[in-house]
């Protein structure tokens, strides 16, 4: 599952690593990772605690040197073109940290001073965008975690980035805030930016992202478009009716059915083809006098997929 067709105009990935490895002594926190983050999409980066997500981000950004492998950001090889690449990147690593004795606006001024004069001119606009204009004169020490997350995103936006790397941006944000952030991330993608979201909130990643990678124990387990990793299971429907056992017997020899199982009072029916077969199965059940109250394509959620992968690894190790 490595086919990721989304590329920018220049043909490069937003992030591309080849054999990226980061060792701490004998332990490989990141182990020969080949990651490809397409441009212009929201990309979810998933993994259990200690999987190596933050270490990989820190290595990509050059905050710690790689033990082996190569990194390119927006097509620019690292660390050779680090300055040019990072000028187009906004990042939150682990959690947004600030000088607590400074106000939100002053913290942005400090970051903008390092970025350059264009960034200084964006301070008010980014505060407005994350909804902190009214609280920008307050000390960050008085901010909630959710406000700090939003201020962190504002700091990322100071550079008008082509790529945002956000490590657990939903942490500490209330449901309404999560909804706002999700919408903001989609807006950022609509503007042509790439949003790289590292998170353990599988549901949020599934709702927000177009593509996803899963890491565990420092290794990249899978990556691909969200529809490839999670979503409808091909030619499989879930049927609810008033007599599942009789329905199972009826469909056992049906020519449109490849296989049928029951779970939690529902039939999981593998079809030989798509919609026509589903309609034929439904017709058969109705004509047999069964009350069919539920027919939908079977879906595998990102959470199912994630748990399947990580638990399989757990058994293997």
């Amino acid at each position, binding site marked *: 599952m490595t086919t990721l067709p989304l590329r920018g105009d220049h043909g490069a990935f937003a992030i591309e690593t080849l054999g990226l490895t980061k060792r701490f002594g004998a332990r490989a926190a990141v182990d020969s990772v080949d990651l490809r983050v397409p441009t212009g999409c929201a990309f979810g980066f998933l993994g259990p605690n200690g999987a190596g997500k933050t270490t990989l981000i*820190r290595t990509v*950004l*050059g*905050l*710690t040197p790689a033990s082996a492998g190569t990194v390119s950001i927006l097509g620019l090889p690292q660390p050779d073109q*680090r*300055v*040019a*690449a*990072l*000028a187009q*990147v906004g*990042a*939150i*690593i682990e959690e*947004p*940290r*600030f*000088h*607590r*004795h*400074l106000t939100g606006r*002053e913290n942005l*001024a*400090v*970051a*903008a*001073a*390092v*970025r*350059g*004069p264009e960034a*200084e001119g964006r301070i008010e606009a980014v505060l407005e965008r994350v909804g902190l204009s009214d609280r920008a004169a307050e000390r960050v020490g008085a901010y909630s975690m959710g406000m700090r997350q939003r201020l962190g995103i504002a*700091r990322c936006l100071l*550079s008008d980035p082509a790529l945002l790397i956000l490590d657990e941006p939903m942490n500490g944000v209330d449901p309404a805030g999560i909804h706002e952030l999700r919408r903001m991330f989609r807006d950022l993608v609509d503007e042509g930016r790439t949003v790289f979201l590292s998170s353990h909130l599988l549901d949020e990643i599934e709702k927000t992202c177009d593509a996803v990678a899963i890491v565990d124990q420092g290794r990249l387990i899978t990556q691909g478009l969200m529809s490839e990793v999670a979503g409808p299971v091909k030619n499989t429907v879930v049927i609810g009716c008033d007599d599942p056992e009789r329905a199972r017997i009826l469909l056992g020899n049906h020519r449109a059915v490849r296989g049928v199982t029951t779970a939690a009072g529902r039939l999981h029916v593998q079809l030989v083809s798509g919609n026509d077969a589903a309609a034929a199965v439904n017709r058969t059940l109705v004509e047999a006098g069964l009350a069919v109250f539920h027919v939908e394509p079977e879906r595998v959620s990102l959470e199912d997929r994630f748990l399947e992968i990580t638990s399989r690894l757990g058994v293997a190790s």
Partner: protein
Amino acid sequence: MTAHILSRMVSAEFLKLRRRRSLLWWSLILCCLTVPVVYAVLAVLHVTDAAHYGPAGGAENLGHSLEALSLLGGIAGVMIGATAGAGDLGAGVFRDLVATGRSRLALFGVRLPGALALFVPLIIAGLAIATVCSILLAGSLANPSATLVLHYAAWLLVATTLPLILALGISSLLGSRTITVGVLLGWQLAAGPILGQLGFLGRLRDGISVLATDRLLPVPSGRGGDVAASMPLAVALVVIAAWAAVALGAGAWRTRTMDA
């Protein structure tokens, strides 16, 4: 990197320090408020018992008050330098600044001018207050000459900014403001002067930073003892420069090489 970006980064460093209220107040008290209080006490003593207590001002008392100011200002310098050196690390924003792609050496380099922008005006204000007091309260004593005041000013700046520089470099190296303040105050106020009294160390004592700065005093004081008095001026300047260079070099090296 343009001069504009550099100046904005220095301003940001200054802002980070200036907005620390407790640091600002303590620095203000140490540099500007203690000296007039001492002069006021001396003046009251002189007024109430002129037979035992001479005028509070005059050139000699200026020297004494500035020696006290060098100690207190040195403490303020250590606090400001340590905060400037470890502030970003302590707040956890260093990695965010590194992730902008800006050179780590530039991030380190702007700390010193930012710290000096806060500290130097305070210490100059303290010097000005002491000078005014010494003139106003001179009474029958000789006023300090302009040359003497300028000489004291040069010495005072060196004697108080060196601890600031040491603190900045060491806190950048250690990443800890608290440890740096403890170590440097111990060195400045206790270890350095005590080592200076150990005769068996001979000329090795020339390497003690506190004694090297005392060599620059316009009027030799008892504090530096024979070592400071007999130290060649060039040696004193080299020792001071070496201490500053080693501290800043260590801080720059650590800032450049540490995991962010």
